């Protein structure tokens, strides 16, 4: 069976570095490379320095963290749930977060403070709800039950959001919709710091459990036969992945498809053991979201496209490819 190309890892690192550089150099305001380098060093026009160091740099780092987190979360969930179409948003994360955010926006909260907190709380609540529903119905957190419970909770969340927005004043609707479409435009170093912490902890845990996921991917009975406490291992991977995704939603709104597509990309490149899938997923996911953010910023200046819209467009060729493979 084809093994991963020996240059894959350096390639991933270079790709991430390249889009990172591009993301700092490009933006709504055209800046010469010299001006960018000066600004990074702190020299030159105060506004240019503010643009490069205060706006572009934190948002590039935030985009990379969001992508890394989603890439790892998706990879871990697809392995544990034994489903190539699983993605973190399916398990109640996106619906719950959106409910939290919409409620916060309708009570007048600004995007900077309360909304991310409410989004995270909503996501966390929904994740727990999914777990409880699956357990209540089936007695165990079976993968199929988890996915179906996720769909149920998601549907309920969507209904709640629609009801909340139906009678809301236009500003609330606008703010809520903008948040739901995902963006790293509000990135600041404070957000970057706490997300980095989350990603380090959550990602570290998932990497530590990567071998468990390798075994879980064989099936529950075979995994039990190899010595894995299936319920416990599955549950903790599920929780870690979901909370990692919830953290990204709190930081940047809904950035869809990344958790779904990135694991397929790295597996397609020949990575199979989950430690590699997760690490590769982190690099590839980071590169993908940073690239998407560049597109979002330069496609229609001076306005920005929502980040979630760009990543959703990525989903289209992905699903076409899946369709072709299924038909073949």
């Amino acid at each position, binding site marked *: 069976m084809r093994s991963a190309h020996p240059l894959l890892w350096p390639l991933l690192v270079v790709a991430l570095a390249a889009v990172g550089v591009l993301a700092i150099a490009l933006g*709504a*305001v055209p800046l010469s490379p010299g001006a960018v380098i000066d600004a990074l060093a702190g020299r030159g026009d105060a506004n240019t320095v503010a*643009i490069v160091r205060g706006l572009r740099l934190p948002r590039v780092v935030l985009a990379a963290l969001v992508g890394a987190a989603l890439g790892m979360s998706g990879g871990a969930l697809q392995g544990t749930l034994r489903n190539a179409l699983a993605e973190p948003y399916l398990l109640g994360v996106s619906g719950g977060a959106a409910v939290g955010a919409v409620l916060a926006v309708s009570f007048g909260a600004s995007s900077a403070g309360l909304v991310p907190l409410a989004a995270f709380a909503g996501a966390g609540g929904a994740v727990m709800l999914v777990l409880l529903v699956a357990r209540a119905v089936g007695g165990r957190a079976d993968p199929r039950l988890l996915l179906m419970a996720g769909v149920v909770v998601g549907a309920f969340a969507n209904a709640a959001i629609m009801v909340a927005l139906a009678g809301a004043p236009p500003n609330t609707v606008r703010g809520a919709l903008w948040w739901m479409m995902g963006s790293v435009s509000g990135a600041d170093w404070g957000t970057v710091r706490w997300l980095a912490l989350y990603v380090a902890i959550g990602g570290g845990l998932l990497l530590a459990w990567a071998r468990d996921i390798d075994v879980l991917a064989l099936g529950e009975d075979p995994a039990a036969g190899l010595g894995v406490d299936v319920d416990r291992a599955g549950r903790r991977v599920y929780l870690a992945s979901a909370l990692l995704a919830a953290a990204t939603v709190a930081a940047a709104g809904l950035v869809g498809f990344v958790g779904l597509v990135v694991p397929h990309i790295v597996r397609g490149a020949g990575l199979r053991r989950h430690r590699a899938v997760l690490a590769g997923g982190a690099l590839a996911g980071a590169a993908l979201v940073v690239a998407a953010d560049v597109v979002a910023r330069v496609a229609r200046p*001076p306005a920005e496209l929502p980040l979630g819209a760009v990543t959703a467009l990525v989903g289209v060729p992905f699903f*076409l490819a899946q369709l072709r493979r299924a038909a073949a």
Partner: protein
Amino acid sequence: MRARSAAAAAAVIALVSLVASLAACRGEGPASRTADAAAEVGTVAAPLRDDFGDSVQPSGVSPRTRIVSLNPTTTEVLFAIGAGGRLVGRTRWDAWPDSARLVPDLGDGLRPNVEAVLATRPDLVVLYASADNRAAAERLHAAGVRTLALKIDRIADFRRALLLLGVATGERSRAAAVGDSVAATLGRVRRSTAGLPRPKVFWHVWDSPLITIGAGSYMTELVEIAGGHNVYADLPDPSPTIAMEDLLHRDPDVVLAGPEGARLIAEGAAWRRLRAVRAGRVLVVDTALVGRPSVRLGEAATAIARLLHPGTTP
């Protein structure tokens, strides 16, 4: 064969995505207003048309005719020209003048509840002329009710609306008087700020996404009249979305914001990157006064001039 259909499907999807992204945020294009340039001067040449292309005729002439106004500006104008007593319905956002609150609230002005409007048995319904309201206009026509659709984005639009409402209600002379008064005030303000240095102004409308005022809005005109210059006067849309980076680059001297917006600016650490914010030059405007292009335009211009050039008495 399979490759061809796959390519075709991909092409269709790409095309649709392209069209969608181009269409989004296009904003409303100006309707047929050029033909009424003559009407601006006061002569009634060919039949007057509103912004949906329907002809305007005096249909609310008697004090007993029933008018529904689904727009804060037109509600205020109707009161100003003495036709307020004929109003049997307004939107929930129409709060001026105070006596407007006594008129029954029929809900939203965009995609209005047509049943509620018809229940008041109106003779004339004044609508905001956006694409959203075309369906409502059709339904009202089907029920035999006249409509007057107006798009009021710039000061010239306001003057035209004033004229058309005057014609429709038979209060042309009072409408003309209101128009003259507003024009006089605006002229006075413009002259008093003519020689003064023009600060670069950024008008903060909303935070996420970042929305400001462009050339398509009367608010840009007010800033010009009040002796300032909107840094986004080069964008044609009335309320374009922009990026923070771009704003930093344009480096305004002054930020104009409503109380809500000023609070968001004060709370948001990101805003302190702006020189104007660091220098404390965030000026709070009364959104009730400047929020719509109506009979108080003159007062609005005066208020803004006082903010931009304190100490001058326009």
